[in-house]
């Protein structure tokens, strides 16, 4: 069983350090930013690696197109902006210049959902995953853990194709150790359980692990799965766990429409239907507020997951 630890390193530091390592080892790996390198901690990277790292200015559409053009010539560009602007702001460029053109761009969206905090509703991506899930061949990862972030950055740089990775830049929590093995398309069982399955991603993994502790005190044995790989989603694991527990709760830092909850619901409905409930933003906009305040206000807390677990259990029984 995985335990939550308070980390001492912000994810943006892990991001910039990993990019330094990747770019040192492969001169074709590049980094483009749209005037948010100061926010994501890559200013030093841009200053020290001018041949590989470029701040293009506030032009996300051009950034994605340039990255796609670079990739067709063999470069491996990562592009970053806040999750709102690296997805919906340039959705057609990602679709056509990226996916349809079979380019190789690694899109990073920082501060997904409630982690946008004081930047508020304009900057709070609760729809980014939904936008990209319908783009053919696009892979989508929801990450809020340093070891997982290192893996995703390295793995996506090595495999050709379009990817989108979202992570909260200032978050520090951790629940994996350095030896954890990951695989794209494979979720990770963080806690085995018999009664109910909580499938979570990103920041909501922490809420899910807390919820499992709370449920345990109520003699409910919850299984917790980190489904960081939203697309491709791990249908095999979802069905295996659903047939074991017979009750599913999903928890995502995103609108419940079009994200992880929808992906899991599609698998369950087609292959292994069991009672389920989705936790996440319930089709509303974001707003200014601290992360904890927003998690409570949007009914995405561990307590909300516990209530959802009780509801699906009552429907199952």
């Amino acid at each position, binding site marked *: 069983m995985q335990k939550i630890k308070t980390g001492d390193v912000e994810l943006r530091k892990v991001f910039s350090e990993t990019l330094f390592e990747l770019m040192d080892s492969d001169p074709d790996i590049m980094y483009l930013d749209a005037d948010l390198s100061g926010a994501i901690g890559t200013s030093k990277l841009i200053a020290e690696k001018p041949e590989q790292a470029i701040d*293009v*200015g506030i032009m996300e559409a051009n950034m994605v*197109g*340039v990255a796609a053009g*670079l990739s*067709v010539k063999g470069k491996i560009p990562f592009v970053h902006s806040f999750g709102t602007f690296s997805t919906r702001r340039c959705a057609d*460029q990602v679709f056509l210049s990226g996916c349809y053109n079979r380019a190789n761009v690694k899109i990073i969206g920082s501060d997904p959902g409630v982690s946008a905090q004081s930047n508020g509703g304009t900057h709070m991506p609760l729809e980014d995953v939904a936008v990209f899930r319908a783009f053919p061949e696009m892979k989508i990862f929801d990450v809020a853990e340093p070891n997982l972030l290192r893996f995703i950055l390295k793995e996506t740089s090595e495999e050709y194709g379009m990817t989108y990775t979202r992570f909260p830049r200032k978050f520090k929590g951790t629940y994996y150790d350095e030896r954890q093995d990951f695989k794209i398309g494979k979720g990770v069982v963080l806690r085995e359980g018999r009664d109910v399955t909580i499938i979570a991603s990103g920041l909501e993994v922490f809420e899910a692990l807390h919820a499992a502790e709370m449920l345990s005190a109520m003699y409910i044995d919850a299984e917790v799965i980190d489904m960081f790989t939203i697309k491709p989603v791990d249908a095999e694991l979802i069905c295996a766990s659903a047939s074991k527990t017979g009750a599913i709760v999903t928890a995502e830092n995103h609108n419940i429409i079009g994200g992880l909850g929808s992906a899991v619901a599609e698998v369950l409905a087609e292959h292994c239907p069991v009672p389920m409930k989705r936790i996440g933003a319930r089709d509303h906009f974001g707003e200014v507020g601290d992360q904890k305040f927003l998690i409570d206000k949007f009914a995405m807390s561990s307590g909300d997951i516990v209530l959802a677990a009780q509801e699906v259990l009552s429907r199952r029984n």
Partner: protein
Amino acid sequence: MNFDKKKIDLFAIDIRENIVRTIASKGTGHVGGSLSIADTLAVLYGAVMNVDPENPNKEDRDYIVLSKGHAGPALYAALALKGYFPMETLQTLNKNDTILPSHTDRLKTPGVDLTTGSLGQGTSLAAGAALADKLDGKENYTYLIVGDGELDEGQVWEFALFTAHQNLSNLITFVDANGKQLDGTTEQICRLGSIEKKFESFGFNAITVEDGNDTEQIYNAIMSAKAEKGRPSAIVLHTVKGAGIKRYTKMANCHSVAVGKDELEEILRELDEKRDQIRGCRNAEN
């Protein structure tokens, strides 16, 4: 290289013939914007570009990015005439399972380097390709073709800022300024003002080609652009939509029109007369 105007003018007529034949095989298509850029493609493929039809993906080739992707039939005609694929393939335009979709697709058509179709997007793709070449110290060029209506797209101006800032002199942008877009003239729909002054103010070396359907003027502009090493160049081609075929130049707008059998015969006769003129007189007007 000496420019053989007669040879290139004949090539441009061959491209025109195959544009209308190709579109006639489907019945309808983007005639006007394909014809307006035919002379530029004749110059590029006949006298300028480092490409090899036998090896369409050769590493050091010049890139072509047709950002006004709907002019695909013009590029397909040039590519087929150069031998990238059999001439008969042109008759499959927009038909089921074709390798020639209405908008250019790098994965389907040999000789197409980047996929375009959503206007404005070819610009940034071309900039990325040119930037990669510059970073790798390569000598080849990227040739980008945009329409004047396409300049309405904001992405074009993001591209222009970026390309000038990065000093991508290995990228040559052609603006096919035929003055018309789908819904009317560029003057009616959204005034562009001086395209040259706009690009100049963004940091480009802007070159005017007063007759954008004159192959020699186009060639000279490209040579002038290649001599400019400090800035990217934008060649503004003042063209005529439907150029080279009377029935289309006379139309108020020939953006997308039907081409019937009778019309095709009339057009082929007109093009044959032009060929005779060129063969008979070295300085004949196109």
